[in-house]
């Protein structure tokens, strides 16, 4: 392998620095603004030297029960992720292994679940959940998000299952393992990176989603994204609180992705080289 020239190294470093700046500057602005006093929030040129204030964070948690909203978000995101991984993975395994002339149609039908514009199904969902008595509960959002996440998981995991040689499962069968045992002890560990990728996508979608959460929740199951935006009113946008809330919202996503990072990198590159 050729050693890169100094100029190439420098170019790479500069490009990485630019990329980092593009992605990190907005987070930096959010972090700085979350401790900036309101009267100088939009001062031009922006002031970076100021006495930081914790008021926005204090107001965020005292003006409204923000801790409860974060808990709701966690509950909904984790619930939907677990639900989607369970059923999406099983569906993907079935689609990958079953040989039937209509199986591709079934797979496409599952994918088509993602093609609905959310606004088209909000009213039916609202009426259904209202009738079932689960409106404004985390369960309603877990169900809705799972209808979006299960197709994603199914299609992602199908690719990973396709990569696992059928001979391995046949060998397990010869050794006396049943279908379930083969699936759980042989196949599933081999697609762990795929599970990590799916989990990250499901979690991030459920954590960030706004429209369904706005329409299908009240104060009981309101999620953090809706709660943060609720500081946008008709006569004022409480930017300080929005920034403080946004900064807090970023944290669980980052922690979750970092936790899955080891499998994530492997999962994202798996199958790219045969």
């Amino acid at each position: 392998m050729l050693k890169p020239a100094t100029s190439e190294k420098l170019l790479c470093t500069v490009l990485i620095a630019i990329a980092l700046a593009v992605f990190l500057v907005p987070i930096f602005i959010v972090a700085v603004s979350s401790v900036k006093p309101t009267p100088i929030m939009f001062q031009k040129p922006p002031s970076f030297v100021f006495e930081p204030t914790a008021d926005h964070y204090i107001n965020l948690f005292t003006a409204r029960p923000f801790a409860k909203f974060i808990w709701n978000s966690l509950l909904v995101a984790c619930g939907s992720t677990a639900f989607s991984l369970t059923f999406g993975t099983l569906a993907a395994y079935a689609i990958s292994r079953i040989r039937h002339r209509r199986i591709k149609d079934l797979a496409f039908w599952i994918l088509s679940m993602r093609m609905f514009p959310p606004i088209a199904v909000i009213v039916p969902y609202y009426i259904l959940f209202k009738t079932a008595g689960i409106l404004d509960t985390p369960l309603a959002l877990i169900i809705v998000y799972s209808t979006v996440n299960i197709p994603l998981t199914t299609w992602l995991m199908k690719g990973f299952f396709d990569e696992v040689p059928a001979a391995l499962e046949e060998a397990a069968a010869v050794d006396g393992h049943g279908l379930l045992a083969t699936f759980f002890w042989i196949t599933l560990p081999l697609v762990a990176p795929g599970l990590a990728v799916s989990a990250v996508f499901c979690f991030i979608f459920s954590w960030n989603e706004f429209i369904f959460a706005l329409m299908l929740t009240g104060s009981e199951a309101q999620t953090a994204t809706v709660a943060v935006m609720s500081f946008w009113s008709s006569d004022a946008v409480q930017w300080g609180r929005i920034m403080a809330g946004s900064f807090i919202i970023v944290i669980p996503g980052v922690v979750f992705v970092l936790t899955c990072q080891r499998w994530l990198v492997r999962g994202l590159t798996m199958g790219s080289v045969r």
Partner: protein
Amino acid sequence: MKYANIALAAAALSVAASGAALGQKQFEGIELKMLGIGDTSVTRLAPLVDEFEELTGAKVQIDQFPYPGLIDKIVIEASADTPSYQLMWVDSPWVGVLGESGALEDLTDLAIRDAEEINLDDIIPIQLQENTWQGRLLAFPASGMIWHQNYRKDLFEHPDEQAAFKAKYGYDLEPATNWEQYIDQAEFFTRTAGEVLAGNVLEKDFHGNAQAYSRVAGAITHDFFPIMRSYGGQYWDSETGLCAMDREPSLRAVDVMKRLVQFNPPDYLGLMWDIRTGYMERGETAVSSYWSVRTVRLTNPEEALVAGIGEVGYAASPTGEDIPQPTMTGALSFGINSKATDDEKEAAWAFIKWGTSREMMRRFAEEGNGVSMFHRSILMDPDLQERYPYYQVLLDTQEHAQRRIFHPFYADVEEVFGVALNKYMAGEADDPQAVLTEACNKINTRLKVFPVELRLRWIADPPAEIFSN
């Protein structure tokens, strides 16, 4: 009708009295939820709802949601037969959509029945009219808005500035009464760092004016429409019910806004509601026109640095030259879900009466909580006027204000004109007539699928029937 109302009131009183005699409160056991917002009209009231429960027995919970998307949530909520929310927070331009969808209970009869109790005669009529649809009252004002101008009074009264202005423009430096004066003042006060302003050398640029040019949430249209109306412009053609916002008054309004661009901050295209008002709140602009709901911050040093830098003056919005037109109003209001049960409706009405009462508004004012007022007696109160110097302006301007847009296609107008005007102000289009015509055509394409009779009904604004009693 009069006797029926008296009988109804007597029946209500006797029911209340019998409840009281049993030691039971009138609305004991009723739970109300409000589909609300983090607006001052709600946040000032939210901590006090226990007092209402103490008085009436009804428990009230206020849920707060973001302004964007709230109207959709209200419409969806009204589609359920058994509502989760009995009380709705309403922005007055929404009455067209909500009225047409039947989402809100008609409050006309209730307001007439309780006219004395709610001091109906003390409420500035345009604030009630603002909440009507086809003459029927669909919501009740909780905060009255008026479009007016704020200016740096300390700069306007500085002798050096007064002399320099008179020498340059040939007339006295006073709050602008027309848009040409407003532009002159914006130009005059635009200074760069190092220049002198009111005897002080500026450390950074000072902007003559700060208006909203952002397309976000239609912010630019909030500034455009009052100027258009001040030149005598109308939203709709009275013969066809189609868009009329591409005519001479609109062109003049576009011209005013375009000429003001050079006196605005460099980020003018991103200036939306409170980013724009922030310039006045920090004392970084000389003149700015906007809704009075933000003006209430200007006397509070905790919310506005300008209170510690200089002094803000308040005046009516400028008009077109020689054709004085009244300015534009708005209202932030409470309504009742039409699907609520009769008991819930009665309790919800009691809550609205309590939360928007003259006593409650006075309490807010005395406690220093800024709410844009709509009772004459409060705005005329000498003690409160001294404390809130903008009260007289709110009173004068509201008495002669025009109603804001209330068409069911209001959101479309904000979106289409917001983008079109923003593009023109950014220099992406050259011909203002073409820009306005194209925007109107887009609106008309959506409107023409409806019969002309319906379109004309949508723009009709008969006087509220509560005034006829």
